[in-house]
């Protein structure tokens, strides 16, 4: 149907524009990162030199080591990873079970539960943060990891939605065959659904990692003790106490981002699936 020779002619000029656009976009979007790395390799006097230095002649890689002695960066790493692991555990257990029931078990009240869960997506997190904070103060959970871990064990509307969509796409005949073989719901979930839903589960794990790693408001609200700080909160406190030491701040900023960039390179496909699930499949 298509006319190859016409299309090449038609596309010649736009092709040039496309490359120019991509090039311009790359310069604009990559520029800040270049600036970040440049600054992280400077000395303090490089930073405030006039006329400005474009790239340091003698890159100060030791900034990346110094940062660990200025603030307990290692502790922040450990705390962040600790929270990530628990959040992944809680998110996986709760959301897989919930989504399995909502997608595969015909029970009374399931439509209402699903609708209520989706409805919570419309409630801004800022609305419930203060009363939740008050709740935790009544429970004596302030300045501890509890408020940052426990909620993950109660399901997350976005992940429930994503998993329900995926579970529904698995043919029901499998369940029926398993029933005939005498399996119950727990066996069906563990032996059948979970292995088949690996891609969706990977999306949940990666996004939980990302959200926990990047969370700022949660740690800001609940953690006062420097020993409990996460990387995000630690970087903020570094910003407050070393507010003109941009070389160290940028080295710290780079160190906080590196694990995310690594994960992204290994799991690009899952990222795209996770981001588009809400917008398109709905």
């Amino acid at each position, binding site marked *: 149907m*298509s*006319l190859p020779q016409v*299309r090449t002619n038609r596309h010649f000029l*736009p092709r040039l524009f496309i*490359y120019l656009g*991509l090039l311009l*976009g*790359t310069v604009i979007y*990559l520029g*800040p*990162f270049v*600036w970040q790395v440049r*600054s992280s390799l400077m000395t303090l006097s490089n930073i405030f030199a006039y006329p*400005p230095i474009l790239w340091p002649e003698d890159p100060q890689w030791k900034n990346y080591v110094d940062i660990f002695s200025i603030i307990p960066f290692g502790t922040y790493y450990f705390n962040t990873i600790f929270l990530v692991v628990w959040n992944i555990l809680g998110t996986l257990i*709760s959301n897989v*079970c*919930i989504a*399995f*029931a*909502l997608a595969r*078990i015909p*029970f*009374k*009240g399931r439509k209402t539960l699903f609708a209520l869960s989706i409805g919570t997506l*419309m*409630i*801004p997190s*800022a*609305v*419930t*943060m*203060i*009363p939740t904070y*008050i709740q935790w*103060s009544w429970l004596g959970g302030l300045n501890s990891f509890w408020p940052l871990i426990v*909620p993950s*064990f*109660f*399901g997350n509307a976005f992940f429930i939605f994503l998993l329900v969509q995926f579970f529904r796409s698995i043919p029901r005949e499998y369940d029926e065959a398993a029933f005939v073989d005498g399996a*119950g*719901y727990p066996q069906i979930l563990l032996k059948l659904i979970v292995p088949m839903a690996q891609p969706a589960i990977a999306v949940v794990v990666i996004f939980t990692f990302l959200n926990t790693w990047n969370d*700022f408001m949660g740690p800001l*609200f609940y953690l006062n003790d420097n020993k409990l700080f996460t990387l*995000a*909160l630690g*970087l*903020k406190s570094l*910003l407050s106490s070393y507010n003109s030491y*941009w070389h160290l701040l*940028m080295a710290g*900023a780079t160190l*906080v*981002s590196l694990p*995310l*960039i690594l994960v*992204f390179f290994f799991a690009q496909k899952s990222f795209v699936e996770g*981001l588009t699930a*809400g*917008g*398109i499949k709905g």
Partner: protein
Amino acid sequence: MTFRKDTLWGWLFCLPLALGLTIWVAFPLGVAVVMSLFQWNMISPAKFIGLGNYVFMFFTDHLFWQSLYVMALYTVLSVPLQLIVAFGLALLLNTKAKGMGIFRTIFYLPSLIPVVVSTALWLWMFNPQYGYFNLILDTLGLPTQEWLSSPDMVIPSLVLMSLWSVGNIVIIFLAGLQGIPKELEEATQVDGGNAWHRLRHVILPFMSPVIFYNLVMGVIAGLQVFTQPYIMTNGGPANASLTYVLHLYKQAFQFSKMGYANALALVLLVLTIVLSLVVFKSSDKWVYYEGDKK
């Protein structure tokens, strides 16, 4: 499996959800409603003041109105610009140029890094004396700007920064663009339609549900912006970047006005619901769903 067994298993598996909706949604909302009627600093006993917090909010607290204005200004400026920039990038990324994987990664990276990191980076880039932007402006012979330290420039600066982290929106647009049937695009080419016709009559109508989704999400995020102004300006200069949630945060944790902060939170909830309804209502007029015309 019998009916009763299904119900039993269903509710057992959904127990975390049922409990979660109670403990983390219903109960906090209840606490917010009740506490919004009290004056309470979390130390001395709470004092019932009826609708006092709301009266104070609407009639005395000029910072409430200021924060509403800042929130509205930020949302009105940032959301349309974000959608346009993200749509443009998605159109570029939807072409068959070489090295597309690398380009996608580059445009997504700013959304991947933690907000604290991008905020720290941009705070440094906005530095009036040694920062990235004024260095560029100076090199080009253009007048340098005050950026975050000028009340007029601080919100545009934050908007500019938000345009850098549109990667999530780009990916959603990109997925939508890839869902456009090839025959539809080719049909306009055969009919002699140019790129503009294709955009106006094929791509935009087809993409309207995706644009709608990003619009709703963008507005909800715009109403809640907190971390960037909190870290960069703490609401200044002259409260020009005091967003609603930052105002709420300060009332709660700087001035220990827990009752008042809860009242502010509830007003935000009402605002969000009303705005979402308005956007949903308007969607009949411009959002085209495939199923409609069958």
